């Protein structure tokens, strides 16, 4: 096996203590200086950037939400013009879905999964860096276009034929479609990294039934990304082709069909919801175990629920199309399949409730957000059961009822756990605790603000207010509830200002965290806060599902990895038995250069098909640079 000695190589078994730490740090650190920073392939550096960038987009998307709530606070307001409002709601949805919700979950996975499975770096770290740059450039492309008044205005769903060249002759729809391509490339890259990291880089002994629930959730999410995203890439690429070179995928007068778009979009769009929600459940499970002071009840039930949710999520897309004139029996079957997803979701909730029932809850901010999550998400799930019913959906579809429903599901199901996760893992990432006092303010403002903002929307939808209207007349009697909702939205927005203030304050003044401030059980708490570049001086050996609770004194470790070059330990898929030592890539500027070349290609190709021709050679050059043999000893075994 690979552990066979190579006589001249320095291994981590001959060094000890500080000497080992310093040696590994020298090997694994990100080079200094600006260029060094741009070359970084450390999953923690990339993950931190990913998280910060995603939160920056949350801020931008949130500002748009406030603009909309100001416009809708009363009837016939002229704060935003019709044209501007349509851009704003499109940008809000696109930003929140593609530039915040999905990336932020992947960002947490990029940072945490390698630590939680006990390895030194993510699989394919250069691809990881490339993924971040693509995400950043795609997001900037969308937002710069918006600032130059070329922001998309056809909705985050961009239905044809409204988004076709005939009805949107400007570049606005192209900007939307190509932003999709950017973010999908980024998301697919991370998905592959997560799957390989979880399958091959787990610490020895971390058998499948010892993987932390958060990691399981991210694994299922990664598979969802790999199966769902190709559908939207096909959709958006054929839309660009229709617009650029006059193909007729969606033109009903030439044999295409507008509903083809909707099928492709929602075949992606529904799993997308679970791509956002399942990581949220992983965060909930992680936080709950720590603050209920016991493992989550029903570990196999939770995992099977995650997997079942993943499968079922591909069988429900038609419930977004109940009013397009589908055959009645077919639609009814999608009612049943949509409601059935309540079963795995429900099982998870029951497991969490049982955990809290038996646990000894420690009421810190992360747990508050998890409790808020349960209260809000269950309501959103139940309104989801309502919209899954064909007759009910014919009334509430495309009304504010649905707006209320999916904000309950997405904010309740993903953002509350996410903010809880920020409070929970901030000490690990920054080395300092967030203020508990501000945390409580944050929670209560968010919880109250959210419900005041979104609950009235259920009623607004039932009393006839459609979505995506930039104004309404005074005689519609929607004004009072809209005003209440706008007020709630301001309070909710303020809660994020408190979060931001807390982060800024605590980065300087927060109490030092230490390795394991919450006395949690998973491996990311077995290293220092923030973790050193190599994550762990020696790779831990896992003998229990909750390693830090089972071996509170000291963890067993395995030794023998190189201490003079980057090396990770590959283990077997099911049993996590050590298999091979594998070289891990050095920092490189090529992922950035490749991303720049790809960006030029992508943006160029919405203007001229020739960009496909002149855009590819630079990409080829950068990829050759990326994969140029370095002459290292890797893969000799």
């Amino acid at each position, binding site marked *: 096996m690979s552990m066979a000695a190579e006589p001249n190589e320095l291994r981590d078994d001959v060094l000890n203590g500080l000497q080992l730490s310093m040696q590994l740090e020298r090997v694994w650190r990100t080079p200094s200086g600006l260029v060094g920073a741009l070359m970084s392939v450390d999953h923690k550096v990339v993950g931190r950037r990913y998280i910060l960038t995603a939160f920056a987009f949350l801020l931008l998307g949130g500002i748009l939400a406030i603009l909309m709530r100001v416009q809708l606070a009363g009837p016939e307001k002229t704060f935003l013009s019709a*044209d501007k409002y349509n851009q704003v709601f499109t940008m809000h949805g696109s930003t929140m879905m593609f530039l915040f919700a999905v990336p932020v979950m992947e960002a947490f996975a990029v940072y945490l999964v390698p630590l939680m499975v006990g390895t030194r770096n993510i699989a394919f770290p250069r691809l990881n860096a490339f993924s971040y740059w693509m995400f950043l450039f795609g997001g900037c492309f969308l937002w710069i276009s918006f600032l130059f008044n070329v922001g998309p205005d056809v909705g985050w769903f961009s239905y044809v*034929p409204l988004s076709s060249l005939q009805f949107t002759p400007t570049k606005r729809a192209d900007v939307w479609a190509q932003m999709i391509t950017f973010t999908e490339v980024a998301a697919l890259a991370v998905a592959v990294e997560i799957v390989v990291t979880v399958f091959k880089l787990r610490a020895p002994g971390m058998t499948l039934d010892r993987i932390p629930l958060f990691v399981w959730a991210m694994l299922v999410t990664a598979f969802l990304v790999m199966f769902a995203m190709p559908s939207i890439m096909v959709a958006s690429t054929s839309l660009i082709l229709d617009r650029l070179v006059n193909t007729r995928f969606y033109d009903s007068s030439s044999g295409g069909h507008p509903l083809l778009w909707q099928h492709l979009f929602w075949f992606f769009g529904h799993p997308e919801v679970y791509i956002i929600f399942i990581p949220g459940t992983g965060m909930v499970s992680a936080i709950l175990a720590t603050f209920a002071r016991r493992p989550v009840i029903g570990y196999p039930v939770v995992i099977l629920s995650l997997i079942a949710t993943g499968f079922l999520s591909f069988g429900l897309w038609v419930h977004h199309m109940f009013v397009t*004139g589908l055959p009645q029996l077919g639609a009814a079957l999608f009612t049943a399949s949509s409601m059935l997803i309540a079963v795995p979701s429900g099982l998870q909730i029951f497991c969490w409730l049982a955990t809290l029932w038996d646990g000894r809850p420690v009421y810190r901010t992360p747990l508050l957000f998890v409790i808020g999550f349960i209260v809000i998400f269950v309501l959103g799930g139940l309104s989801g059961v309502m919209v899954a019913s064909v007759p009910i959906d014919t009334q*509430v579809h495309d009304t504010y009822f649905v707006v209320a429903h999916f904000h309950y599901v997405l904010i309740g199901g993903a953002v509350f756990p996410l903010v809880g996760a920020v409070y929970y893992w901030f000490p690990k990432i920054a080395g300092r605790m967030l203020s508990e006092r501000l945390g409580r303010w944050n929670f209560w403002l968010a919880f109250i603000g959210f419900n005041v903002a979104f609950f009235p929307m259920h009623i607004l939808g039932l009393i006839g207010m459609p979505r995506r209207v930039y104004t309404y007349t005074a005689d519609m009697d929607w004004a009072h509830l809209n005003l209440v909702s706008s007020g709630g939205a301001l309070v909710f927005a303020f809660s994020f200002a408190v979060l931001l203030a807390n982060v800024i304050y605590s980065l300087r003044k927060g109490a030092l965290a230490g390795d394991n401030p919450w006395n949690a059980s998973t491996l990311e708490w077995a290293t220092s806060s923030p973790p050193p570049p190599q994550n762990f001086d020696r790779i831990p050996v896992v003998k229990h599902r909750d390693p830090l609770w089972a071996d509170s004194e000291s963890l067993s470790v395995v030794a023998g990895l190189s201490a003079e070059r980057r090396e990770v330990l590959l283990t077997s898929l099911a049993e996590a038995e050590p298999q091979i030592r594998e070289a891990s890539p050095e920092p490189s500027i090529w992922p950035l250069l490749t991303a720049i070349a790809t960006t030029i290609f992508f943006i160029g190709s919405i203007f001229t098909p020739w960009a496909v021709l002149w855009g590819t050679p630079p990409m080829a050059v950068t990829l050759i640079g990326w994969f140029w043999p370095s002459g290292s000893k890797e893969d000799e075994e």
Partner: protein
Amino acid sequence: MQVWVPRVLVLCMTWPLAACAGQQSALDHQGLQSEQIRHTLFIFLIVAAIVWTAVVIVLGLGLLRRKRTADQPLDLHQPFEQRSGRVVLALGIATTVVVLGLSFVSYAGQRTVFAKDENALTLKIIGHQWWWEVRYEADSPHQSFVTANEIRIPTGQPVKVELESADVIHSFWVPSLTGKMDLIPGQKNELQFTAKNAGIYRGQCAEFCGIQHAHMAFAVIAMSPDEFGRWRDHENQSANSPTDQLGKQGEALFRARGCALCHNISGTMAGGQLGPDLTHIGSRTTIAAGTLPNTSATLGAWIADPQHIKPGNLMPKMPLQSDEMIAIIHYLEQLK
């Protein structure tokens, strides 16, 4: 299917509508279909309310109950672990039973809502950016006529609307009568509904269709079958010829100033097909697809600058002198 609904629940859901005249609301059921949907909705609502309340109570009790003392997180109480496993399983089965039950309730409601009546009064509705073309088609062409943004139907009689689109996807929605159905280019959809009571029911486009999606409303006016018959006979006739000098002047200007290029007024030279048919515009309640009430002042404001009232709509601002404007308005108002 008659359902018992707690009075309080209905009040909670509907109190904000106390002031609402029931113009456009899924809770104000004036059609057989909307009534059925409301029944289904309330069954779901009751189940949802019970489940949510139960979860929150269990959550609260779970947090507040006296906890056993143990200091090690892994020091678990085995009987509890086994019992909780069984409880979770039982609740999972219960969830399955409930959602399957609700699926059947939903399907039963769906069959009623979408039941078809072969003898329904049929009309065709074509969606345009941002107005509704309404065609009453009969076997003989003399019995067929076209109007816009206002649909008159007889009460107590099933009505079938055939839905098509001239441009992008729209959605036909009159919540007081029934749920919505999309108008999709290249596809023919249909929807049937029956109004129980006479009244004016507002409807609105529910699928985002471009810059003026917010101003794409219409009215369904349900009237007694006798009244409807009289109205229909009247609509079949060509437009009234203007009786006075000002009206005649207006008719001439309507042609000369380009209005007739887009608008049809049957029985006259005006035969444009791009905009709404104006044959009986004077008898309609609103203009600009439900955006404004139909008065001489609003009509004047609209013609003077349509882009101010509904920015981005396809009607251009025509350069008109004020006396020309007065003549045209006078003419249009006579088209009862």
